[in-house]
């Protein structure tokens, strides 16, 4: 008699295979994930990939086209011949090394911004979703923050606080916080109405345990998805800040800085913009594709929305 209950609803059961397996089967996740893993590997292994110190230059080797050979003088004063795989910039720096090392900065910016925005957003969102007295004040504040176009906040903050990794990350993260907060809050508000949370209440589970044991874990999937989008837009925004001259100091090799410096002679030496631009676009694309894949597999409800 009971066995029949199995078969009748077996159709429903089949579709709920484990999230991990669905992830691995999803093409977006596969493509975006592998490209990203590759980029991270490149960033980590930068010194091993035939690069030189990305800040080193030799004016005699300036404006070389990709593949040409020139020379580089090391900090020890030795002059060594060097093949400029992606050409050199108007200083005579090796674009290839700068792009490879730039991956470290750009990826860190993306990751740190996402983590920072999520950390603050989650705290604020949990607070607003669970503490009624905090909700009104906090959400009005977030509404206000959200009304200021993010890029303006970022530009103003970086320009006024002077560019450094910390300030750039903070400045890009701040405008993202209200969005995360809103998301977390709405998730908390809807999850706390779920019967399994009510069941936990009636089981005598203390509030903090419900918050961290029942509610937070169920917000993770949409938050990971949101995190990837924040990461992608942060990498992009960093390059825009650099382009406008309010990003990280120009001697730090970020993709945005390489492009910002190369744009002066874009028509003549497009490789200065092309290679970092390509890496940037591929990275952002990979993160976005990964985000789409994660959303489709982890958070089908949201998938229908955007």
């Amino acid at each position, binding site marked *: 008699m009971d066995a029949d209950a199995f078969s009748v609803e077996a159709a429903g059961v089949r579709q709920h295979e484990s999230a991990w397996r669905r992830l691995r089967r999803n093409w977006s996740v596969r493509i975006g994930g592998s490209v990203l893993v590759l980029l991270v590997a490149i960033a980590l292994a930068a010194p091993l990939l035939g690069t030189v110190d990305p*800040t*080193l*230059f030799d*004016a*005699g080797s*300036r*404006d070389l086209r990709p593949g040409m050979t020139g020379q580089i*003088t*090391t*900090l*020890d*004063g030795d002059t060594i011949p060097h093949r400029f795989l992606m050409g050199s910039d*108007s*200083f*005579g720096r090796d674009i290839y090394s700068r792009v490879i090392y730039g991956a470290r900065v750009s990826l860190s910016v993306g990751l740190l911004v996402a983590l920072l925005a999520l950390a603050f957003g989650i705290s604020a969102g949990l607070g607003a979703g669970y503490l009624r007295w905090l909700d009104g004040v906090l959400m009005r504040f977030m509404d206000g923050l959200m009304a200021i176009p993010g890029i303006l906040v970022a530009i103003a903050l970086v320009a006024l606080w*002077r*560019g450094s990794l910390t300030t750039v990350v903070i400045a890009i993260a701040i405008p993202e916080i209200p969005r995360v907060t809103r998301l977390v809050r709405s998730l908390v508000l809807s999850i706390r109405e779920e019967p399994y949370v009510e069941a936990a209440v009636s089981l005598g589970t203390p509030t903090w345990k419900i918050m961290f044991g029942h509610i937070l874990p169920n917000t993770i999937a949409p938050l990971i998805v949101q995190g990837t989008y924040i990461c992608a837009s942060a990498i992009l925004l960093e390059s825009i800040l650099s382009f406008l*001259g309010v990003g990280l*100091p*120009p*001697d730090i090799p970020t993709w945005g800085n390489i492009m910002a410096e190369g*744009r*002066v*002679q*874009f*028509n*003549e030496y497009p490789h200065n913009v092309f290679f970092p631009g390509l890496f940037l676009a591929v990275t952002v694309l990979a993160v976005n594709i990964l985000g789409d894949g994660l959303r489709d597999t982890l958070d089908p409800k949201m998938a229908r929305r955007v």
Partner: protein
Amino acid sequence: MISFRRIAVLAAAFAAMGASPGAFAQGKVLRVVPHSNLSILDPIWTTAYMSRNHGYMIYDTLFGTDAKARIKPQMVDTWTMSKDGKTWTFKLRTGLAFHDGAPVTSEDVVASLKRWGRRDALGQQLMTFVEEMETPAPDTFVLKLKEPCGFVLEALGKPSSNVPFIMPKRVAETDPFKQIDDYTGSGPYIFKKDEFKPGDRAVYIKNTKYVPRKEPASGTTGGKRVYVDRVEWNLALRDPQSQVNALAKGEVDILERPAFESYGQLKEIKGVEVFNRDPMGFQYMCRFNALHPPFDKAAVRRAALAAFRQEAFLQAQVGVKEYYHTCPSMFTCNTPYATTAGSEIMAKSNMRKARELLKASGYDGTPVVLMKPTDLAAIQKLPDVAAQLMRQAGFKVDLQAMDWQTLVSRRAKKDPPSQGGWNMFCTAWVAPDIWSPLSNAALDTKGEKASWFGWPDDPKIEQLKAQFARELDLGKRKKLAAEIQAEAFAYGTHAPLGEYINPVALRTGITGLVVGPGDFYWNVKKN
């Protein structure tokens, strides 16, 4: 459904919003991309070069400086100096009129000089000699001095900021510490106030009533003849690549200061030429802060000097071979006081020697705080080169990027680098500012009392400079200058890094650009 009538109404509303008087420009328009933004329209209130250039468009001057640095009369027709040298009488030439039609009178001149005399450094000095300014006739004014003064004409014909421009009396009576808001001048162009949008554009139209002098134009002197109907300064076009593109497409006529990186492209473009109107050009230098370690020691400064190969700086910063040359002199090369004295340490720059010097100096590894401006393309690569060369020599370098505004306020601080001070920065000078030991601010070695930042303390230089000032013989002066330079290199006041020019780029067919220390737009023809 949106009806056509509604679209028409919308379009009309749009048109009404966009329409501005005189927008339908007639005749020849010269479209110029100036080197910077024009934000202040009072050339007496500020020393900004853009405001000076604006002044030359709409005002005229009593005297001017020609291409060979000689003072020539401009608004003045004739002048006399009394025997005792204490009374100067000037007669204005005929036909001078302001844009509103009123004739230029001596009262306007006196009021203008008074205001200038409150703001300009040289003007202030002149005013200490002036006892009285009189206006015996509308075309005559008289300077009565307390004692004879040798630089009356030099002051009145001063080519660069602040220039004693002649304004109408009512304007010149504005508080010198407030900006004027009436831009009536008597110069070759008339300012279109209604079309001026800071950060967008400034427009000048030909002053058809202007009477030029007979002589050919030279520097700020001679006949300021106008061959175009309208000059538009494009203040919005700041992106270097866009500037080149716009010039290539003929959307603008002149780029005042193309980025060095752009010359390679500019020379390739058909219909575009490059022209240098400031032959003496600029000199680069890096300045040490002698107050704080590690550059409080001459030996350390000299180690840096030994590391600084001028070619490295020039090649990275300028790049275009024909636009730069190394110059071992602290005084502009190819000018009277140029010398090689004491320059061996740089002229024969040698990294091995730099390392030895640094080791011998007892350098303890204190990082050099090197300030880098991020928004001045003409000098922003120098600090990077300096940093790399110094690192190669064994220095520790803390390269700090900031905008020029910040750099300027920070370089004035005498605090230690750890408390918001600094060790080093790089900059560029126009030739006339440094071509003599007296004008070269970097050679002010009065220690903390020195007028320029870095505060080197070398009484010997000061003593030689005093001698130089009193010496009248050119040969002896040259010798003194050489001695001064040798001592300066030995002390390590600063590192001269070579010289460069920054020619304008213009469309073929634009001719007649005036050579001189500013960007002037009379005499320019457009085909």
